[in-house]
C-alpha cells in the first residue's frame, strides 16, 4: 500500500477553470436531459437492487420500494444516475492517470490510525447517505444542480450542508489537523 503523497503527481487544475469545466458539463446535462447531475441516486439504485434480489418478497410489501418502483418502472439499473456514475469512475480515473495520482492509498489526517479513518469514513458515508435521501439529493444532485436552476430547496440544502459542516468542524478537527 502506498502511503503519503505521489511524488510525480502533477498540480491540480486551476480551481476556477475546473469549476468552469464542471459548470459546462452541468449545463450540457441540463440542456440535453432537462435534469442535473447526481451521485447518491446511483448508490440508492444499488441498495434497492440489492434488497430486491436478496429479499424480493419483503421488498414487495415495503412502502419505500413500492414508491420507488412506481417512479422507476424500468428497474433500479436502468437509471440515468447509474450510467452517469459509471462515467464518473472512468472520467476520474482518466484524470488521475493524466495527473499521475492513481494508486491504492488510504488518505487520512496526520493524527489518526487507519482504523479510525475507515470507521469515520463509514460513519460519515452513512450520515451522508441517509441525509441525501432525506434532502432529496446530495451535493451534486441537490446543491449544485439546484443552484444552476435556482431551486429554493437546492440552495437551502446547500446552505445546510456547508453550514453544518462548518459548525461541526471544530469538534472533528483531530480527524484532519495536526
Amino acid at each position, binding site marked *: 500500500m502506498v502511503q503519503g503523497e505521489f511524488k510525480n503527481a502533477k498540480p491540480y487544475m486551476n480551481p476556477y477553470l475546473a469549476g468552469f469545466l464542471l459548470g459546462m458539463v452541468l449545463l450540457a446535462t441540463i440542456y440535453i436531459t432537462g435534469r442535473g447531475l447526481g451521485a447518491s441516486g446511483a448508490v440508492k439504485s444499488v441498495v434497492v437492487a440489492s434488497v430486491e434480489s436478496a429479499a424480493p418478497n419483503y421488498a414487495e410489501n415495503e412502502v419505500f420500494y413500492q414508491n420507488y418502483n412506481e417512479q422507476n418502472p424500468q428497474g433500479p439499473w436502468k437509471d440515468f444516475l447509474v*450510467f452517469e456514475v459509471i462515467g464518473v469512475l472512468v472520467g476520474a480515473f482518466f*484524470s488521475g492517470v493524466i495527473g499521475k495520482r492513481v494508486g491504492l492509498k488510504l488518505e487520512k489526517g496526520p493524527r489518526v490510525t487507519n482504523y479510525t479513518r475507515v470507521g469515520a469514513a463509514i460513519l460519515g458515508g452513512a*450520515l451522508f447517505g441517509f441525509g441525501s*435521501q432525506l434532502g432529496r439529493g446530495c451535493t451534486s444532485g441537490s446543491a449544485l444542480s439546484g443552484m444552476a436552476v435556482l431551486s429554493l430547496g437546492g440552495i*437551502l440544502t446547500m446552505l445546510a450542508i*456547508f453550514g453544518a459542516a462548518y459548525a461541526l468542524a471544530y469538534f472533528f478537527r483531530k480527524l484532519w489537523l495536526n
Partner: protein
Amino acid sequence: MGPLVPFIISEELSLVIAFFLGIGFGFALEQAGFSSTKKLVGLFYGYDFTVLRVFFTAGITAMAGVLLLGHYGLLDLGVIYINPTFLNSALVGGAIMGAGFIIGGFCPGTSVCALAIGKLDALAFLFGAALGIFAFTESFPLIEDFYRAGNMGQIRISDYFGMSNIAFGFILAIIAVGAFVATWYIENKVNNRKPVIASQQKNKYIGAVAALFVVLAVVAIFPGEKEIINNRIAEAKRQQTCVFKEMSADKLSSEIVNKYYALNVIDVRSPEEFEAYHLPLAVNIPFDQMMERQYEPIFKQRLKTNVFYAGSDTLVRMACLKARYIGKSENFILKESPGEFRQMFFEAEPPPPDASKSQLELYTFRNINAEKMNDLVDALKNIGAPVKREKVTIQGGC
C-alpha cells in the same frame, strides 16, 4: 430546442449520454482535486478554499448558461427539472449531510472520484453511504410524514422572493465573486502567505468575471425570444398587412363533417370560455399557452389544417400569427365568432313561410350539418377525440 430528452432523444439513448456526461463530471472533479479529503475538508478549516471556488464557479456558470439559453428560447425553462422544495427535510437532510461531510471527508460524488484513483477510504465512505441509504429505506415508514412535510413544490428561489430569475442571478454572481475575493484573503492569512497575484493572472480573472456579467446583462437587457415574438404579434401593422386565410362557418362545418380527420379546430380562448361553449371537435389551446412545448407538434405538422377561432378578431389574428412563428402548418382563421357559429347551426330560427328558395336551402344545409356534427362528436367522444396533451415534466434529483 432543449431539453433534448424526451422530445428529440429517447430515454434509452439518454442513458448512453449519461455515461459520457459522467466522464466529463468525473474528469472535472478529479482535476479540481476533489478526490482528496485534504482538499475537501480544507474548506472547513480555512486552509484551502478550492471546493468553494470550483463549486461556486460551476454553479454560476451553469446558472448563467441556463438563463441565457432560456432567454433565447433554446432551452424550455418550463420543462426542466427544478428540485422540489420540502422545507423541513431539505434543512435537516442538509445538516445531516454536513455532519457526514466533516466526519467522512467526502460527499458521494467526490468519493466515487476518489475510489476511481484507488483511495481506499473512499471505498469505505461509499460502503457507509449504502448503509445510510439502506437505513433510510428501512425506516421510511417512520419518517415518511417528516419527509413529505413543508412541501412547497418546484419553486425557484427567485419566485420565493418575488424577483425575476435574472435579478437573483445577479445577486448570486455578486455573492460568488465576493466570496472568491474574501476567501483568497482568508486562505493567505491562514497559510501565512502574502496576498500577491501575478498581474497576468489578475487580468484573466477580471476578464472571466466581466464575461459572466456581460452574459447576465444580455439576458437582463435584450428582449428574449418570446418577447420578440409577442411584440411582433401585437403590432397592429402586422395584423393588418398580413394576409390571413379565412374560412367561413359554412365551409368549416362542411370540412368538419367530411374531413374532420384532416383538421385541427383550435379554440384559443380561455379554458372557462371553452368549457362554456366550443365548436364541435375543437381543442383548447389558450393563447398564452400556445408556445408551450406540448403543443408544438400541432403547429409544426403539415398533414392537418389548423383552424383558429376566438371571440375577438384581434385575438384570433394574433393566434394565427403566433402559430406562424412556431411552425409551418397550414393555418386558417374562422370568420365568425363561436357565438355566431352556434347560432347559425345549433340555434337557427326556422325560415319564415315566405322565405326564398336559397334561404330554405341554407337552413336545411345547416341543419343537416349540425346533426352530422353532433353525430360525429358522439361517435368520436372516446376513440377519435383529440388527445389532450399533457405537460411534460422531467424527473431528476438523487
